[in-house]
Protein backbone atom coordinates (compact mmCIF):
# COMPACT_ATOMS: atom_id res chain seq x y z
CA UNK A 1 0.00 0.00 0.00
CA UNK A 2 2.82 2.37 0.86
CA UNK A 3 4.11 1.93 -2.68
CA UNK A 4 1.49 4.49 -3.61
CA UNK A 5 3.56 7.08 -1.81
CA UNK A 6 6.33 8.79 -3.65
CA UNK A 7 9.24 10.35 -1.83
CA UNK A 8 12.27 12.51 -2.45
CA UNK A 9 15.34 13.04 -0.27
CA UNK A 10 18.05 15.68 -0.30
CA UNK A 11 20.61 17.26 2.03
CA UNK A 12 19.60 20.28 4.08
CA UNK A 13 20.45 21.82 7.46
CA UNK A 14 23.39 19.46 7.75
CA UNK A 15 21.18 16.40 7.60
CA UNK A 16 18.78 14.48 5.35
CA UNK A 17 15.46 15.97 4.34
CA UNK A 18 12.76 13.67 3.00
CA UNK A 19 9.29 14.44 1.75
CA UNK A 20 6.79 11.69 0.94
CA UNK A 21 3.28 12.02 -0.39
CA UNK A 22 0.34 9.71 -0.93
CA UNK A 23 -0.38 11.18 -4.36
CA UNK A 24 2.60 11.13 -6.73
CA UNK A 25 1.30 14.22 -8.48
CA UNK A 26 1.67 16.19 -5.24
CA UNK A 27 5.37 15.46 -4.81
CA UNK A 28 6.81 18.35 -6.80
CA UNK A 29 4.67 20.92 -5.00
CA UNK A 30 5.33 19.38 -1.58
CA UNK A 31 9.07 19.31 -2.25
CA UNK A 32 9.04 22.92 -3.35
CA UNK A 33 7.23 23.96 -0.18
CA UNK A 34 9.65 22.04 2.00
CA UNK A 35 12.65 23.61 0.27
CA UNK A 36 11.16 27.05 0.81
CA UNK A 37 10.61 26.36 4.51
CA UNK A 38 14.13 25.02 4.88
CA UNK A 39 15.70 28.06 3.25
CA UNK A 40 13.63 30.37 5.43
CA UNK A 41 14.44 28.59 8.70
CA UNK A 42 18.14 28.42 7.83
CA UNK A 43 18.23 32.14 7.20
CA UNK A 44 16.38 32.79 10.45
CA UNK A 45 17.87 30.26 12.86
CA UNK A 46 21.30 29.11 11.70
CA UNK A 47 24.10 29.55 14.25
CA UNK A 48 26.66 29.31 11.48
CA UNK A 49 25.44 31.54 8.64
CA UNK A 50 26.91 35.01 9.09
CA UNK A 51 23.80 36.50 7.47
CA UNK A 52 21.30 34.69 9.70
CA UNK A 53 19.00 36.51 12.08
CA UNK A 54 20.08 34.33 14.98
CA UNK A 55 23.73 35.26 14.49
CA UNK A 56 22.73 38.93 14.61
CA UNK A 57 20.63 38.32 17.73
CA UNK A 58 23.43 36.49 19.51
CA UNK A 59 25.79 39.34 18.58
CA UNK A 60 23.56 41.90 20.29
CA UNK A 61 23.27 40.76 23.91
CA UNK A 62 21.27 42.93 26.24
CA UNK A 63 19.48 44.56 23.31
CA UNK A 64 15.93 44.26 22.10
CA UNK A 65 16.30 42.99 18.55
CA UNK A 66 13.45 43.18 16.07
CA UNK A 67 13.13 39.81 14.32
CA UNK A 68 11.12 38.19 11.56
CA UNK A 69 7.90 36.37 12.27
CA UNK A 70 9.61 33.05 11.65
CA UNK A 71 12.43 33.63 14.14
CA UNK A 72 9.91 34.91 16.64
CA UNK A 73 7.93 31.70 16.21
CA UNK A 74 11.08 29.58 16.48
CA UNK A 75 12.08 31.28 19.72
CA UNK A 76 8.54 30.99 21.06
CA UNK A 77 8.49 27.27 20.25
CA UNK A 78 11.90 26.80 21.87
CA UNK A 79 10.78 28.58 25.03
CA UNK A 80 7.59 26.55 25.13
CA UNK A 81 9.64 23.36 24.77
CA UNK A 82 11.80 24.50 27.65
CA UNK A 83 8.78 25.17 29.82
CA UNK A 84 7.09 21.91 28.83
CA UNK A 85 10.22 19.92 29.61
CA UNK A 86 10.92 21.64 32.91
CA UNK A 87 14.06 23.18 31.44
CA UNK A 88 15.56 19.89 30.21
CA UNK A 89 15.44 21.24 26.65
CA UNK A 90 16.72 24.80 26.83
CA UNK A 91 17.63 27.15 23.97
CA UNK A 92 20.17 29.05 26.07
CA UNK A 93 22.78 26.30 25.61
CA UNK A 94 24.25 28.14 22.61
CA UNK A 95 27.28 29.41 24.48
CA UNK A 96 28.26 26.08 25.98
CA UNK A 97 27.80 24.43 22.57
CA UNK A 98 30.27 26.93 21.14
CA UNK A 99 32.71 26.47 24.01
CA UNK A 100 32.47 22.70 23.59
CA UNK A 101 33.58 23.04 19.98
CA UNK A 102 30.30 22.84 18.11
CA UNK A 103 30.83 26.31 16.75
CA UNK A 104 30.51 25.62 13.01
CA UNK A 105 28.78 23.10 10.76
CA UNK A 106 29.42 19.55 11.92
CA UNK A 107 31.28 18.61 8.72
CA UNK A 108 33.77 21.41 9.45
CA UNK A 109 34.00 20.52 13.16
CA UNK A 110 34.87 16.95 12.26
CA UNK A 111 37.40 18.01 9.62
CA UNK A 112 39.63 19.84 12.09
CA UNK A 113 42.11 18.12 14.39
CA UNK A 114 39.99 17.76 17.52
CA UNK A 115 43.01 16.91 19.66
CA UNK A 116 44.06 20.53 19.37
CA UNK A 117 40.72 21.84 20.65
CA UNK A 118 40.31 22.14 24.40
CA UNK A 119 36.60 22.33 25.26
CA UNK A 120 35.02 24.12 28.17
CA UNK A 121 31.46 24.10 29.47
CA UNK A 122 29.07 26.50 31.09
CA UNK A 123 25.60 25.80 32.57
CA UNK A 124 22.80 27.34 30.56
CA UNK A 125 21.57 30.72 31.77
CA UNK A 126 18.03 29.39 31.55
CA UNK A 127 15.14 30.02 29.18
CA UNK A 128 13.44 32.42 31.58
CA UNK A 129 16.18 34.98 30.89
CA UNK A 130 14.93 35.41 27.33
CA UNK A 131 12.43 38.20 26.76
CA UNK A 132 10.02 37.80 23.89
CA UNK A 133 7.77 40.69 22.94
CA UNK A 134 5.11 39.35 20.58
CA UNK A 135 3.52 42.77 20.10
CA UNK A 136 6.72 44.38 18.90
CA UNK A 137 8.37 41.32 17.30
CA UNK A 138 11.44 41.64 19.49
CA UNK A 139 13.68 39.23 21.33
CA UNK A 140 16.18 40.13 24.01
CA UNK A 141 18.86 37.83 25.38
CA UNK A 142 20.93 39.04 28.33
CA UNK A 143 24.65 39.59 28.08
CA UNK A 144 26.53 36.29 28.09
CA UNK A 145 23.60 34.28 26.72
CA UNK A 146 23.60 32.73 23.25
CA UNK A 147 20.62 30.94 21.76
CA UNK A 148 20.75 27.60 20.00
CA UNK A 149 17.44 26.66 18.41
CA UNK A 150 18.70 23.45 16.84
CA UNK A 151 16.72 21.19 19.14
CA UNK A 152 13.33 22.49 18.06
CA UNK A 153 13.80 24.44 14.82
CA UNK A 154 14.12 21.35 12.63
CA UNK A 155 11.02 19.84 14.17
CA UNK A 156 9.19 23.11 13.67
CA UNK A 157 10.05 23.09 9.97
CA UNK A 158 8.85 19.51 9.65
CA UNK A 159 5.51 20.44 11.24
CA UNK A 160 5.10 23.59 9.16
CA UNK A 161 6.09 22.01 5.85
CA UNK A 162 3.94 18.91 6.29
CA UNK A 163 0.91 20.97 7.23
CA UNK A 164 1.39 23.47 4.43
CA UNK A 165 2.02 20.83 1.77
CA UNK A 166 -0.97 18.76 2.83
CA UNK A 167 -3.19 21.82 2.78
CA UNK A 168 -1.91 22.94 -0.61
CA UNK A 169 -2.06 19.57 -2.37
CA UNK A 170 -4.80 17.72 -0.55
CA UNK A 171 -2.50 14.72 -0.32
CA UNK A 172 -1.16 12.96 2.73
CA UNK A 173 2.35 14.28 3.43
CA UNK A 174 5.28 13.09 5.52
CA UNK A 175 8.29 15.32 6.13
CA UNK A 176 11.42 14.01 7.80
CA UNK A 177 14.40 16.14 8.81
CA UNK A 178 17.16 13.99 10.17
CA UNK A 179 14.66 11.49 11.51
CA UNK A 180 12.35 14.08 13.07
CA UNK A 181 9.08 13.34 11.32
CA UNK A 182 5.78 15.17 10.88
CA UNK A 183 2.79 13.83 9.01
CA UNK A 184 -0.31 15.71 7.87
CA UNK A 185 -3.36 15.05 5.75
CA UNK A 186 -4.88 11.67 5.09
CA UNK A 187 -2.21 8.99 5.66
CA UNK A 188 -1.85 5.98 3.40
CA UNK A 189 -3.93 2.95 4.42
CA UNK A 190 -2.15 1.36 7.36
CA UNK A 191 -0.34 4.59 8.16
CA UNK A 192 3.15 5.84 7.35
CA UNK A 193 5.67 3.09 7.85
CA UNK A 194 8.77 4.30 9.68
CA UNK A 195 11.83 2.28 10.44
CA UNK A 196 13.73 2.82 13.69
CA UNK A 197 17.50 2.87 14.06
CA UNK A 198 20.25 4.63 15.97
CA UNK A 199 21.10 6.59 12.81
CA UNK A 200 18.44 8.15 10.61
CA UNK A 201 20.72 7.57 7.61
CA UNK A 202 20.60 3.79 8.06
CA UNK A 203 19.19 1.97 5.02
CA UNK A 204 15.46 1.39 4.88
CA UNK A 205 15.91 -2.35 4.49
CA UNK A 206 18.33 -2.71 7.39
CA UNK A 207 17.61 -4.53 10.64
CA UNK A 208 15.31 -3.05 13.24
CA UNK A 209 11.62 -2.64 13.89
CA UNK A 210 9.18 -0.46 11.96
CA UNK A 211 6.07 1.30 13.22
CA UNK A 212 3.17 2.93 11.44
CA UNK A 213 2.10 6.48 12.29
CA UNK A 214 -1.18 8.11 11.29
CA UNK A 215 -0.92 11.66 12.57
CA UNK A 216 1.23 14.08 14.53
CA UNK A 217 4.94 13.55 14.84
CA UNK A 218 7.63 11.08 15.72
CA UNK A 219 11.16 12.07 16.65
CA UNK A 220 14.36 10.37 17.70
CA UNK A 221 17.21 11.88 19.67
CA UNK A 222 20.49 10.08 20.00
CA UNK A 223 24.03 10.43 21.18
CA UNK A 224 25.73 8.12 18.69
CA UNK A 225 25.67 10.15 15.48
CA UNK A 226 26.49 13.83 16.01
CA UNK A 227 29.80 13.46 17.79
CA UNK A 228 33.17 15.16 17.52
CA UNK A 229 36.66 14.76 18.90
CA UNK A 230 38.30 17.21 21.31
CA UNK A 231 41.36 17.27 23.54
CA UNK A 232 39.01 16.37 26.37
CA UNK A 233 37.58 13.33 24.61
CA UNK A 234 34.68 12.71 22.25
CA UNK A 235 31.56 14.81 22.79
CA UNK A 236 27.97 14.69 21.55
CA UNK A 237 25.39 17.40 20.97
CA UNK A 238 22.66 16.53 23.49
CA UNK A 239 23.55 18.99 26.22
CA UNK A 240 22.30 18.93 29.78
CA UNK A 241 21.42 22.59 30.43
CA UNK A 242 22.05 22.14 34.14
CA UNK A 243 25.74 21.39 33.62
CA UNK A 244 26.38 22.66 30.11
CA UNK A 245 28.02 19.32 29.35
CA UNK A 246 26.91 16.56 26.98
CA UNK A 247 24.27 14.55 28.82
CA UNK A 248 25.62 11.49 30.59
CA UNK A 249 22.65 9.32 29.69
CA UNK A 250 22.02 5.61 30.09
CA UNK A 251 20.16 5.83 26.76
CA UNK A 252 21.75 6.12 23.34
CA UNK A 253 18.56 6.65 21.32
CA UNK A 254 15.08 7.69 22.39
CA UNK A 255 12.11 7.76 19.99
CA UNK A 256 8.83 9.40 20.95
CA UNK A 257 5.45 9.74 19.20
CA UNK A 258 3.48 12.88 20.01
CA UNK A 259 0.83 15.26 18.73
CA UNK A 260 3.44 17.16 16.71
CA UNK A 261 7.04 16.77 15.66
CA UNK A 262 8.01 19.62 17.99
CA UNK A 263 6.41 17.85 20.94
CA UNK A 264 8.00 14.53 19.97
CA UNK A 265 11.44 16.13 19.63
CA UNK A 266 11.06 17.97 22.91
CA UNK A 267 10.18 14.76 24.72
CA UNK A 268 12.88 12.60 23.12
CA UNK A 269 15.58 15.16 23.89
CA UNK A 270 14.31 15.68 27.43
CA UNK A 271 14.29 11.92 27.99
CA UNK A 272 17.93 11.61 26.98
CA UNK A 273 18.90 14.40 29.34
CA UNK A 274 16.75 13.07 32.17
CA UNK A 275 18.39 9.64 32.08
CA UNK A 276 17.12 6.97 34.46
CA UNK A 277 13.89 8.83 35.19
CA UNK A 278 12.93 9.07 31.52
CA UNK A 279 10.56 6.09 31.25
CA UNK A 280 8.45 7.31 34.17
CA UNK A 281 8.54 10.90 32.87
CA UNK A 282 7.34 9.79 29.42
CA UNK A 283 4.72 7.46 30.83
CA UNK A 284 3.24 10.20 33.03
CA UNK A 285 2.71 12.25 29.89
CA UNK A 286 1.21 9.31 27.96
CA UNK A 287 3.85 9.58 25.28
CA UNK A 288 4.44 6.27 23.49
CA UNK A 289 8.20 5.88 23.49
CA UNK A 290 11.04 3.54 22.70
CA UNK A 291 14.32 3.86 24.59
CA UNK A 292 17.49 2.08 23.55
CA UNK A 293 20.01 1.68 26.37
CA UNK A 294 23.76 1.92 25.88
CA UNK A 295 23.95 -1.89 25.86
CA UNK A 296 21.32 -2.11 23.10
CA UNK A 297 18.46 -3.30 25.29
CA UNK A 298 15.11 -1.73 24.50
CA UNK A 299 12.45 -0.32 26.82
CA UNK A 300 9.00 0.43 25.40
CA UNK A 301 6.86 2.95 27.27
CA UNK A 302 3.10 3.45 27.28
CA UNK A 303 1.27 2.48 24.14
CA UNK A 304 4.43 1.85 22.13
CA UNK A 305 4.09 -1.58 20.46
CA UNK A 306 6.06 -4.27 22.22
CA UNK A 307 9.00 -5.83 20.43
CA UNK A 308 10.00 -9.46 20.26
CA UNK A 309 12.98 -10.12 22.49
Amino acid at each position, binding site marked *: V*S*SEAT*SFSFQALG*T*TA*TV*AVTDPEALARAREMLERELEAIDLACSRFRPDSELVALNAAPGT*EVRVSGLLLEAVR*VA*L*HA*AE*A*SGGLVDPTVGKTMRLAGYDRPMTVVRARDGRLFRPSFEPAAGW*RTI*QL*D*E*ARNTVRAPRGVELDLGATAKALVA*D*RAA*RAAAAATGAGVLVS*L*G*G*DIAVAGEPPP*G*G*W*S*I*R*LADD*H*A*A*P*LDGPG*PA*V*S*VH*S*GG*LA*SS*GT*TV*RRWATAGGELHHIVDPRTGRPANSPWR*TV*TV*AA*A*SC*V*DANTASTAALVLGDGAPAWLDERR*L*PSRLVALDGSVACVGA*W*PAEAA
Partner: protein
Amino acid sequence: MQTSPYPPGDAALARDAAAARLRRLTVGAFAGASALAVVFAGVASATTHHARKAVSVAKTAVTVTTLPAVNVSAPSATPPGGAVATAAPAAPAQAPAPAYSQPVVTSGGS
Protein backbone atom coordinates in the same frame (compact mmCIF):
# COMPACT_ATOMS: atom_id res chain seq x y z
CA MET B 1 44.58 118.30 55.57
CA GLN B 2 43.31 116.08 58.38
CA THR B 3 44.70 116.85 61.87
CA SER B 4 45.03 114.54 64.91
CA PRO B 5 42.46 115.13 67.72
CA TYR B 6 45.14 114.36 70.24
CA PRO B 7 47.70 116.79 71.54
CA PRO B 8 51.04 116.62 69.77
CA GLY B 9 53.37 114.18 71.43
CA ASP B 10 50.65 112.02 72.83
CA ALA B 11 51.56 109.20 70.39
CA ALA B 12 50.42 106.39 72.66
CA LEU B 13 46.85 107.62 72.65
CA ALA B 14 46.83 107.98 68.87
CA ARG B 15 48.20 104.48 68.44
CA ASP B 16 45.53 102.99 70.75
CA ALA B 17 42.75 104.76 68.89
CA ALA B 18 44.03 103.49 65.53
CA ALA B 19 44.22 99.93 66.88
CA ALA B 20 40.65 100.19 68.15
CA ARG B 21 39.44 101.33 64.71
CA LEU B 22 41.26 98.41 63.07
CA ARG B 23 39.64 95.91 65.46
CA ARG B 24 36.16 97.32 64.75
CA LEU B 25 36.82 97.10 61.00
CA THR B 26 38.06 93.52 61.27
CA VAL B 27 35.03 92.43 63.33
CA GLY B 28 32.71 94.12 60.88
CA ALA B 29 34.33 92.45 57.90
CA PHE B 30 34.17 89.07 59.61
CA ALA B 31 30.50 89.51 60.45
CA GLY B 32 29.74 90.53 56.89
CA ALA B 33 31.59 87.55 55.45
CA SER B 34 29.77 85.23 57.82
CA ALA B 35 26.42 86.65 56.80
CA LEU B 36 27.26 86.22 53.12
CA ALA B 37 28.34 82.62 53.77
CA VAL B 38 25.00 81.88 55.40
CA VAL B 39 23.15 83.44 52.49
CA PHE B 40 25.13 81.47 49.87
CA ALA B 41 24.72 78.25 51.84
CA GLY B 42 20.98 78.78 51.84
CA VAL B 43 20.94 79.40 48.11
CA ALA B 44 23.06 76.32 47.48
CA SER B 45 20.86 74.18 49.67
CA ALA B 46 17.74 75.34 47.89
CA THR B 47 19.32 74.65 44.49
CA THR B 48 20.33 71.10 45.44
CA HIS B 49 16.90 70.35 46.83
CA HIS B 50 15.23 71.35 43.54
CA ALA B 51 17.69 69.19 41.56
CA ARG B 52 16.79 66.14 43.62
CA LYS B 53 13.17 66.72 42.89
CA ALA B 54 13.92 66.85 39.18
CA VAL B 55 15.84 63.56 39.27
CA SER B 56 13.02 61.91 41.13
CA VAL B 57 10.53 63.04 38.52
CA ALA B 58 12.78 61.82 35.72
CA LYS B 59 13.10 58.38 37.32
CA THR B 60 9.37 58.10 37.59
CA ALA B 61 8.97 58.93 33.95
CA VAL B 62 11.52 56.29 32.90
CA THR B 63 9.78 53.64 34.93
CA VAL B 64 6.46 54.42 33.38
CA THR B 65 7.75 54.23 29.83
CA THR B 66 9.84 51.12 30.42
CA LEU B 67 7.21 48.90 31.96
CA PRO B 68 5.34 47.99 28.77
CA ALA B 69 8.54 46.80 27.11
CA VAL B 70 9.13 44.21 29.82
CA ASN B 71 5.71 42.72 29.54
CA VAL B 72 6.73 39.34 28.04
CA SER B 73 9.48 37.65 29.98
CA ALA B 74 7.81 34.27 29.80
CA PRO B 75 7.09 32.49 26.53
CA SER B 76 3.80 32.77 24.80
CA ALA B 77 1.71 29.71 25.37
CA THR B 78 0.76 29.50 21.72
CA PRO B 79 2.42 26.63 19.88
CA PRO B 80 2.87 26.54 16.12
CA GLY B 81 -0.36 26.22 14.27
CA GLY B 82 -2.26 28.23 16.81
CA ALA B 83 -3.46 25.26 18.85
CA VAL B 84 -3.98 25.62 22.57
CA ALA B 85 -0.71 25.20 24.42
CA THR B 86 -0.19 22.39 26.86
CA ALA B 87 2.06 22.35 29.86
CA ALA B 88 3.83 19.26 28.56
CA PRO B 89 4.46 17.61 25.20
CA ALA B 90 1.07 16.44 23.97
CA ALA B 91 0.33 12.77 23.34
CA PRO B 92 -0.53 11.62 19.82
CA ALA B 93 -4.11 11.08 18.77
CA GLN B 94 -3.19 7.51 17.90
CA ALA B 95 -0.24 5.51 19.17
CA PRO B 96 2.18 3.93 16.70
CA ALA B 97 1.39 0.38 15.65
CA PRO B 98 3.58 -2.36 14.23
CA ALA B 99 4.16 -1.73 10.52
CA TYR B 100 4.03 -4.43 7.89
CA SER B 101 4.71 -2.38 4.77
CA GLN B 102 7.99 -1.12 3.35
CA PRO B 103 9.21 1.87 5.41
CA VAL B 104 9.35 5.22 3.64
CA VAL B 105 11.87 6.75 6.01
CA THR B 106 14.10 5.95 9.00
CA SER B 107 13.90 7.73 12.32
CA GLY B 108 17.06 7.84 14.35
CA GLY B 109 19.73 10.16 15.63
CA SER B 110 21.11 12.82 13.32
